[in-house]
């Protein structure tokens, strides 16, 4: 009798799971993420990027804007350069929005990155990046010699962390 009840419970659970899976598959198809336009290797494994890309970008944006740290591993521009896909088949202009939207629509998470940042890739027909002039007087850059002192770095990071604590 006991064995029968256990079997019954297991059967019910399996049934519920099957219905749930069928519903998920039937009503909301899993997102089909467009393949990266350029590049074969992301900066982190795909699973890690899916879970943590927002953390990486949040951390990076504060460092870049508030401390002026540039050229590190994560950057929204780098995401766009690889993941922007042609807006129409065969178009030259590439936008990253279809790539982001594929998962974000599924998860019903609205992002506002592209209210301010352009989603267009620079390489092919997007907003062309005008490179800054490379003729700054050499003497203006003497301070760089002292710029690598670890003590100063530490104090700046300390200041930054204290500052960040005040942020909402």
């Amino acid at each position, binding site marked *: 009798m006991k064995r029968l009840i256990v079997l019954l419970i297991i059967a019910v659970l399996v049934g519920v799971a099957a219905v749930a899976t069928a519903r998920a598959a039937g009503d909301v198809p899993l997102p089909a993420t467009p393949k990266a336009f350029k590049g074969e290797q992301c900066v982190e494994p795909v699973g890690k990027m899916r879970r943590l890309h927002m953390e990486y970008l949040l951390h990076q*944006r*504060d*460092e870049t*804007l*508030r*401390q*002026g*740290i*540039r*050229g*590190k591993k994560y950057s929204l*521009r780098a995401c*766009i350069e690889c993941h922007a896909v042609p807006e129409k088949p065969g178009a030259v202009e590439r936008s990253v929005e279809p790539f982001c939207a594929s998962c974000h629509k599924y998860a019903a998470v609205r992002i506002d990155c592209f*209210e*301010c*940042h*352009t989603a*267009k890739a*620079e390489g092919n027909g*997007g*907003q062309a*990046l*005008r*490179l*800054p*002039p*490379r*003729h*700054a*007087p*050499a*003497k*203006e*850059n*003497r*301070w*760089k*010699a*002292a*710029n*690598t*002192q*670890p*003590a*100063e*770095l530490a104090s*700046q*990071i300390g200041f930054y962390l204290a*500052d960040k604590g*005040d*942020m*909402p």
Partner: protein
Amino acid sequence: MTAPMDRERRRFMARALALTAGGAAGLAAVTLGPGLVLVQAAQGRAPGQPASAKVRWGLLIDTNKPAVIWDACVDACRDENGWQGKGNAATDPQWIRRVDLKDKRTGATHSLPMMCQHCESPPCVDVCPTGASFRRADGIVLVDRHICIGCRYCMLACPYAARSFVHEDVTGQKPYMPRGKGTVESCTLCVHRIDAGGIPACVETANRMDPEAILFGDLNDPDSDISRALSRHVVSRIRDDLRLGPGVMYRGL
């Protein structure tokens, strides 16, 4: 029992740090040898390095130069940063503008470009309720649009009326200069160019027309062009009575 060990460990760490610091300074000196200086300058700050408080960027503007230069600066800034408006003077953003002055007694006129003065003690930073308005280590005053709520206190606090509010949706932003509705913005001293070892767009344009019109450089470096000019000429800081320590200075006012 552990206290002496900790002290010893600390002393060891201090020595190790001192050695590292010495090594780093030595390396920097080597890279700054003849011929390598230019490479260093062209690359801007090394990747991963924060802006340094050892440098303080500033501008020295010679207002005796013709006003067409300042108009060209405004155009250059607009093109560089993409803040062209929609033809409504009341709401269009304006990062830099030409101000005309007239001596009422003599009728003599004078023009100057007016933009964020990148103050030493910026009132916009004092009043910001979210910490969005901030001063970077190298003296550049910026808005962190990620946390700007668009309250516009900073616009009221600024005695130079240097800031603008973005009233309308923005499209076609430059990749290096994100802008969006509902946030405040102002001159960034072309921070993207400075970080890459360049000079601001207005300075580049003015230099092309007259190399003496705007000097850009490090106010903390006594050998920079701007510091030498500051030691030679009498200059004005606008609203110096407020003791804000502006990084933008004017000659000939």
